Each structure stands twice: as structure tokens, then as C-alpha cells.
């Protein structure tokens, strides 16, 4: 149940991002939409790792070592998402840098003015 709710949230966030990418003309808004797609997919990956009745895979008083294989959620998606968040940040930084350069050349952030590479 929880996994389905979180999974749907992630997918919905990705849809909002797709909608933003295809409808908005402002480059900054497109970058925000791309971040939304990234965040949605992170939520999706974490949701896939959920195991029914599971808790965080950290061994302590709440999760004794003997019960860990039965009650922990899948740690691999969590580890992958930590990686993905950092890479998403790096990608956003590069996108913003390009946005600044594009603004420098045309003094506008509307994607309609950048027609050189349009086919």
C-alpha cells in the first residue's frame, strides 16, 4: 500500500515534469521541469525498494541483526538514489551554466529565440 502511494507520487511528479518540458518556453522553467522528472524518478526507485513491513536497513536496537534480512527494506535502490541525487545536482548545475551563457548571447531566456539548431 505505502509503496503504491509513493510510486504513484513519483510517477505523477514525473508527469508534471514532462508537461513542463513540452509546454514551457522559458529555459529556467524547462530546467525546473527536468529537475522534477529527476526527483520523481528518485521517489519511484525508492518506492520499488520497499518491502512489506520493512524498515530502514540500519542495524540498531529497533532492528536486531538476526531480524535484519526479514524486516529491512531493499538497500540497493537507496544506495543508487544517493548516487543519482548527486548526479542530478551536477546535471542541473551544468544546465544552469548553459542557461547563463545563452542569456549572455541573446539577452533572453525564451527558447523560441534559439532557432539555430532547430531542424
Amino acid at each position: 500500500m505505502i509503496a503504491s502511494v509513493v510510486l504513484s507520487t513519483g510517477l505523477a511528479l514525473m508527469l508534471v515534469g514532462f508537461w513542463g518540458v513540452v509546454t514551457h518556453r522559458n529555459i529556467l522553467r524547462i530546467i525546473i521541469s527536468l529537475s522534477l522528472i529527476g526527483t520523481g524518478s528518485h521517489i519511484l526507485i525508492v518506492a520499488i525498494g520497499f518491502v512489506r513491513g520493512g524498515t530502514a536497513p540500519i542495524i540498531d536496537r529497533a532492528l536486531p541483526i538476526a531480524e535484519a534480512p526479514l524486516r529491512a527494506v531493499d538497500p540497493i535502490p537507496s544506495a543508487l538514489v544517493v548516487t543519482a541525487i548527486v548526479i542530478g545536482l551536477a546535471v542541473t548545475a551544468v544546465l544552469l551554466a548553459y542557461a547563463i551563457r545563452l542569456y549572455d548571447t541573446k539577452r533572453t531566456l525564451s527558447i523560441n529565440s534559439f532557432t539555430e539548431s532547430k531542424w
Partner: protein
Amino acid sequence: MQRILSAAVVILFAMIFASIAIGYSEQQALRPLAESYVKLVPHDLGAPNVVSGILLAFRAFDTLGEVTALFMAAVGVGMVLRGPGRAFSSDVGDEAGSPASEIVRTSAQILIPIMSIFAAYIILNGHISAGGGFQGGAIIASATLLFMLARPARPINVAFLSITESIAGVLFVLVGVAGLVFAGRFLDTRFLPVGEFGTLFSAGAIPVLSVLLGVKVGCELSVLVDRFRS
């Protein structure tokens, strides 16, 4: 016309996603690989936090590649933003000198030390509880960003940050080579004693890697944020 087309694309995606969401059923038990990780990390590596164990031992090579990607992003942003034709920088040049408001400056004075301590805590306890190098490094970078907002005119020492970051990166690789020499595999953390389970000095070289990763990510992200300011 274009709006209808966009709506059609998004609706098609929505249909695919809906079929995924409806057809999905929760996992009832761990998959074999995950189960072996959950058993192996506390048992062999002595780290209570399984996610940290995966990130810094079993898949530490991926982590190394990932900090390289982050470094590439910092270099890329520097290259893109440098050079002639920066009309944008002259625009904000005057504003950069104007001081931040009293509220921002005062709260920065209070928050930056607390954030630094919290970041150190998160990094050092990465193998025991939730946290780790990436998360702590991000908090360090947030503190740097707050400092930049509070003191827009004050430059930060980018050269120092770059050198610290490089040293942390080199030490990370050297720890990996030490694993190769003393434990038989690259980035094997078991060449240091495993120690008592759940204490600060335990889990072999995982805390060492965590600290190096935290320093590296913190410096890298701070440099990245500073690139956008200048």
C-alpha cells in the same frame, strides 16, 4: 495545435505510468542480492548502516566514479561560465556589492556554526546511522551558500577549496590502493580492524572513506556554487 500535441504526449506517458502503478505489487521479501547485502555488511564489514556499506565498500568504485562525475560538472561549469562575452556578470556586478539584510546576516552567524557541526556529525556517523559523506558534504555546501548570501562581496578561497578537494580525492584512491595491498581488493575496507560493532571507530576504513568523501563533496559543491556567483 502544439498544445494539443503536448497534451497527447503527456497523456500517453500518463497511460504508461498508470499501467505501471496499477500493476505494481509490493515486494514481500528481499531479493537474494539485497538479502546477501543486508547479511554481509554488518557481518563482514561491521557497519550497521547497510546503505553506507554498499556505497563505500561493495560499490565504492561506483562512488569514486561518481565523485569524478561531480568534479567534471564543476570543471564544466567553470569552463562554460568563463571567458569573454559575460554581459551577465557586469549586470550583477553592482548588486554584488550591496550588503544582505540584517536578518540574513544575523541568522547566518547563528546557523553556519550549527550547520558545520551537524555536517561533521552526519559525516562521522555515516556508518552507524543514517547519513554519510554525500549528505554531510551537501550540508557543508549549504553553509557556504548561506555565507555567500550573507556576505555577497566577500570572496571565498577557491584555491584552498580546490587543493583540499584534490588531496581528499588522492587520499580516497590511496585508501583504495591500501585495500588492494593489504586486503587483496581495490577499495576493500577490511585492511583496518573492524572493531566493536556500532561504535565510532569501527567498520574498517568505511569512516575514513566517508570523511574523505564528505570533504571532497563539500569542497566541490562550494566551488560549484561560487562559480555561479562570480
